């Protein structure tokens, strides 16, 4: 068996008296799509923030590609190949789609902050950016400002930005939230096309999508993983049915 890309070991995080992350351990293998589900307030986004470095866990460790990254700031994790998208879409509204994606390419280029080299017409940035834009199906929107994209297009743009990091793992925080049916189907197809190439941790409410896409499903309730395994097993788990799936009716 191959080494997992991402390993969480005993993560704990409390806000005041509230344990939002309560001893979470899980791992994601290369190419695996690991879905994380759970009712609202289960602490899913808080967990993603800890993995991406925007929050620091109280105890526990995060290792990525065999290296302990628990104390690294977000930008170093990103440079190490850990990409993420946000529950509330996060792009640079006044830059075009191409520029947004090229910013990601730039981060991994030899001189990411060159002071005097023009960025807008730099083929070494725009080339890979175009490829990522094609891959997520935004080619005809390349010169539109990110701020004027539709919601689903912004989601796709975020994924394109994640791809330019040449990531070993991508954290996807509810990529389908607030997206209409048609755009949702397009995004699911996009995620399916990426499956196998990147390790992905997918936080999602859309059960249909989760069970269609995931290799492994973990269920988070009140900051604690109550079940983890292949989709069929998790679906059949009585504790999960009671705590979570039952509510879905």
């Amino acid at each position, binding site marked *: 068996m191959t080494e997992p890309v991402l390993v969480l070991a005993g993560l704990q995080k409390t806000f005041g008296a509230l344990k939002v992350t309560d001893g979470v351990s899980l791992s994601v293998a290369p190419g695996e799509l690991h879905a994380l589900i759970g009712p609202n307030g289960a602490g899913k986004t808080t967990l993603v923030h800890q993995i*991406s*470095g*925007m929050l620091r866990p109280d105890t526990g460790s995060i290792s990525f590609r065999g290296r302990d990254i628990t104390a690294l*700031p*977000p*930008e170093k*994790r*990103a*440079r190490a190949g850990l*990409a*993420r998208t*946000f529950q509330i879409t*996060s*792009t*640079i*509204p*006044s*830059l*075009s789609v*191409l*520029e947004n994606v*090229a*910013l*990601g390419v*730039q*981060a*991994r*280029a030899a*001189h*990411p*902050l*060159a*002071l*005097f*080299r*023009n*960025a*807008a*017409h*730099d083929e070494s*940035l*725009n*080339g*890979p950016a*175009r*490829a990522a*834009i*094609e*891959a997520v199906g935004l*080619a*005809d929107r*390349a*010169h539109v400002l990110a701020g004027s994209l539709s919601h689903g297009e912004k989601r796709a743009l975020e994924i394109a*930005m994640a791809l330019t*990091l040449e990531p070993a793992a991508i954290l996807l925080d509810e990529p389908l939230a607030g997206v209409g049916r048609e755009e949702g189907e397009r995004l699911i197809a996009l995620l399916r096309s990426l499956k196998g190439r990147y390790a992905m941790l997918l936080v999602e409410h859309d059960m249909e999508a989760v069970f269609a896409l995931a290799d492994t499903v973990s269920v988070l309730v009140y900051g604690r993983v109550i079940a983890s395994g292949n989709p069929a097993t998790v679906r059949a788990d009585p504790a999960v049915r009671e705590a979570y799936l039952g509510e879905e009716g």
Partner: protein
Amino acid sequence: MSSADAAAAIPAPTRRRPVIAIILFALLALLPVAVSLGLPPHWLTLLTRAMIFAIAALSLDLILGVGGLVSFGHAAFVGIGAYATGIMITEGQTETLLILPVVVLLCALFGAVTGAVSLRTRGVTFIMITLAFGQMVYFLAQALSAYGGDDGLTLYERSTLLGFEPFKNRTGFYYVVLGVLIACYGLISVIVASRFGRALRAARENATRVAVTGFRVKGIQLLAYVISGMIAGLSGFLLANHTDFVSPAFMSWPRSGELIFMVVLGGVGSLHGAIIGAIAFLLTEDVLSGLTEHWKVIFGPMIVLFVLFTHGGLVGLLRKLGLGRHD
């Protein structure tokens, strides 16, 4: 899909030419001609001063407009540049090639230290801290009793350049300042369009996104702050030579407020806007102060009304009239 195929599907970004800036510089270059044809020479002095402030406003626009950092202490850099120049001239050193490195280094040092502290905060706290650091330099200059203290320091010589005296004659000085202004505009334009500039612009709108993309946002902002301070120091060097005088008032906090107003007046983030804003500011000041010694009673409300009723500054106004495009 390969990137070659993608390239076929996605056209290259369009290139834009800085039309307004070119017209502006051409008009400025023609002013001495107009003076020789009978326009009062007062205009030459006034526009020289306006262009010196335009350099400072341009540098502020790099952090305020492009980087989104509202620095309320920018006059400190102008003052440091002016004082370094004034002190060196007083001590008998007039060579520009020696003064300028000192000016630029001092401003870079001050920018690096105060920037590192100020950038630990955001928003309103950043405004207050930059204001306080600016005030610190102001009081420091007041305490410099060997160099005039509160009264300021009169200069009896101007800087020289390898034996030449580029600041001696009024028209010559004018063209030197215009040249420096164009060079600064070019430099800042290049920086804004660079990889660094793109990351800086992006961080203004969404610092979190820039961080998770792999950039150290504070580092980017600090470098911009330092560069901006060095250019402002350059304008201080010119200002000291132009007024033959330096005083703590150069860096009093209303001066920083005025620089912010110049940038906003022209249109935040627009580089030629900063130049237009500075010129419009000094012309207005000149006209109003000719009317009454209490001109600030008119000017203050003008600022208030401007903020309340316009968006996008003078450049926004030009754009509404169909001149120039938004980029």
